[in-house]
């Protein structure tokens, strides 16, 4: 039951994008087409889960014993950047088709604050390894859901004529705001 609640709250109530406003750049940049959005969402899922697990282990076995908690941000950034680089090389060699479809988004993820955000959040919430793992999956599923919904809406913009000043990012930001408001309704689900 707890796990169920964890998933529901991470996907709908505390959606990483729409309630915590992390990772907005890929959200706006890669949500023009559904296929692209799904690719980006999958890449983020992959990296968030891996990064959360590795940073968790580093925190627990290196930083905590030496009381280096104040170095958290810089160490996590370092680890995530290196990890993304490694994943990129690995995919390029081992799974070229996947690399091709994710290729351009992978380096982008290095600077995606959602990755760092989840890694830090699980520390703040003092989850254990298993819960952190599940939470990272749930949070990135929330990201995937939001970005795919957004892409679905923005695909419709093709058949509408927007005023020039609203085309592209402005309409995207307005949409993001409205969706964020809509997701507020889920707050009532878990009292």
């Amino acid at each position, binding site marked *: 039951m707890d796990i169920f609640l964890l998933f529901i709250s991470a996907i709908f109530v505390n959606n990483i994008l729409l309630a915590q406003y992390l990772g907005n750049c890929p959200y706006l940049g890669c949500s023009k087409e559904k296929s692209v959005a799904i690719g980006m969402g999958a890449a983020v899922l992959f990296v968030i889960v891996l990064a959360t697990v590795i940073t968790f282990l580093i925190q627990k076995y290196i930083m905590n014993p030496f009381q280096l908690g104040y170095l958290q941000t810089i160490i996590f950034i370092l*680890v995530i950047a290196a990890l993304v680089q490694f994943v990129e090389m690995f995919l390029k*060699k081992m799974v070229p088709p996947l690399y091709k479809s994710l290729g351009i988004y992978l380096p982008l993820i290095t600077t995606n604050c959602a990755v760092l955000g989840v890694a830090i959040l699980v520390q703040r919430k003092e989850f254990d390894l298993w819960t952190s793992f599940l939470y990272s999956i749930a949070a990135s599923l929330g990201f995937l859901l939001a970005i795919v919904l957004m892409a679905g809406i923005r695909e419709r913009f093709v*058949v509408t004529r927007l005023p020039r000043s609203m085309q592209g990012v402005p309409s995207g930001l307005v949409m993001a705001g409205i969706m964020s408001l809509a997701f507020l309704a889920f707050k009532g689900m878990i009292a």
Partner: protein
Amino acid sequence: MIAESVVTLFGLGFVSASILSVASRLLAVEEDPRIEVVTEALPGANCGGCGFAGCEAYATAVLNDPNVPPNRCCAGGPDVAKRVAELTGKAAGEVEPMVAFRRCVKVEGKVAHKYDYAGATTCAGAKLLDGGPDACRYSCIGFGDCVRACPFDAMWIEDHLVHISPAKCTSCGTCVRTCPNGILELIPRRARVMVFCSSKDKGKAVKDVCEAGCISCGACVKKCPAKAIAIEDNRIVIDHKACLAYGPSCEEICVTTCPRSILRCLQPETVSAPPETEPAHIPEETHVVDLNA
């Protein structure tokens, strides 16, 4: 405290750096340096006219796939084809310069409005509503989806009818793929004749809605000595290759035969413009059914 943090940071940095450098050796992927060279030789418009996702995708394909010819880039034209052929060592082949052409003269044909459309001002949107606001379902809707799609700024709308500047058109075909009514076509720049109508309706239905549309009577098909004209789906298809190969000795008999003057000679500069003079023999009594009435 300071010592520990410095050691940890450097240590972690060192470990990640070594893992990455080892990985970059082990996982190195050989990339063909020629891809970059060929990509540079292409115009970089990424218009997709070659049928690949973009210029780089085409460069990769042309280098690695023996079946991909070097002359697929229409935006670049013969010069680029020659350069790509040089770089890849493939035979350049003939590039027939093409141009986009609009098969519709609804203004001349006095095509009536079926209804007043007040939705999203895009052709694709308007088409969803009973095939568009024009009485002819194959006419130019005129909201300019193609104009917005054209990466080379070669089109504009006038009188709810699209116009194409042959000088600017690179024959990338983006508009052809965009137009929801399929009334745009790529034809050779040298083409002699073309049909200014794309209706797939039967003769009677065309007559009812347009004074200029093709009624598929087939007179041109019979008269053409080069057998270059055919009717498919009630729509005229011209085999420009056969037409050009036959040469001028037919004296463009199809044009003079066509009872509705809808087959016309093309001047390269005015591929899409209607002729200066009104065609003489449009039957006066033909009237347009006004569905608004």
